[in-house]
């Protein structure tokens, strides 16, 4: 079964450093997403991406965050200057369409610890 893959699985970084989280969405999918989950809390939507541009973003996705599809397979989330409160599990996801009946598939996540 095709799956969304994410790297790294775990990253520890110092506050103020830049972090790039990488994702390879399912190959025939056109819509890409990033979610995050702070330990013990809900899964929160960050951003959705289609046709090389952001289609939606949440209030969490501020100027410190950016997304990019640098080539035909990767989808990245960059945090420019990490803060302690950015420590969370970050999930990449993808779907074929953005219709309500479409299924979104999630990767296994990248654990980010900011110290």
């Amino acid at each position, binding site marked *: 079964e095709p799956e969304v893959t994410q790297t790294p699985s775990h990253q520890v970084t110092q506050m103020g450093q830049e972090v790039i989280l990488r994702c390879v969405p399912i190959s025939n999918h056109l819509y890409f997403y990033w*979610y995050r989950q702070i330990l013990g809390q809900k*899964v929160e939507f960050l951003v959705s991406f289609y046709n090389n541009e952001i289609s939606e973003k949440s209030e969490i996705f501020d100027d410190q965050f950016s997304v990019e599809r640098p080539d035909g397979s990767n989808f990245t989330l960059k945090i420019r200057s990490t803060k302690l409160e950015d420590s969370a599990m970050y999930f990449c996801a993808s779907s074929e369409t953005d219709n*309500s009946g479409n299924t979104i598939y999630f990767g296994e996540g990248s654990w980010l610890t900011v110290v």
Partner: protein
Amino acid sequence: LAKTTQPISMDSYEGQEVNITCSHNNIATNDYITWYQQFPSQGPRFIIQGYKTKVTNEVASLFIPADRKSSTLSLPRVSLSDTAVYYCLVGDNEDTGRRALTFGSGTRLQVQP
């Protein structure tokens, strides 16, 4: 307004059938109902999706009444490995206009031996 409402937690024993009900009183005409399972430190995993009546796959069944204001995920004969958080989600969010999925707090299912 909460998009979906589910019990915070449920307990069961191995071999029992578990039914988790979710209410979504404000479900829109176009909304599908999707259930995900999440284990600790893992990504949400798609379980089942439906629009109306009943849907069944190799993992679960989903019952949706005619008014679609609620849905019930049924897990037959659970095992210890079914201990997880289960999320009920509906599609378009008319409150925020957001089309991406919005997760609630989910139902924490604990299966005992």
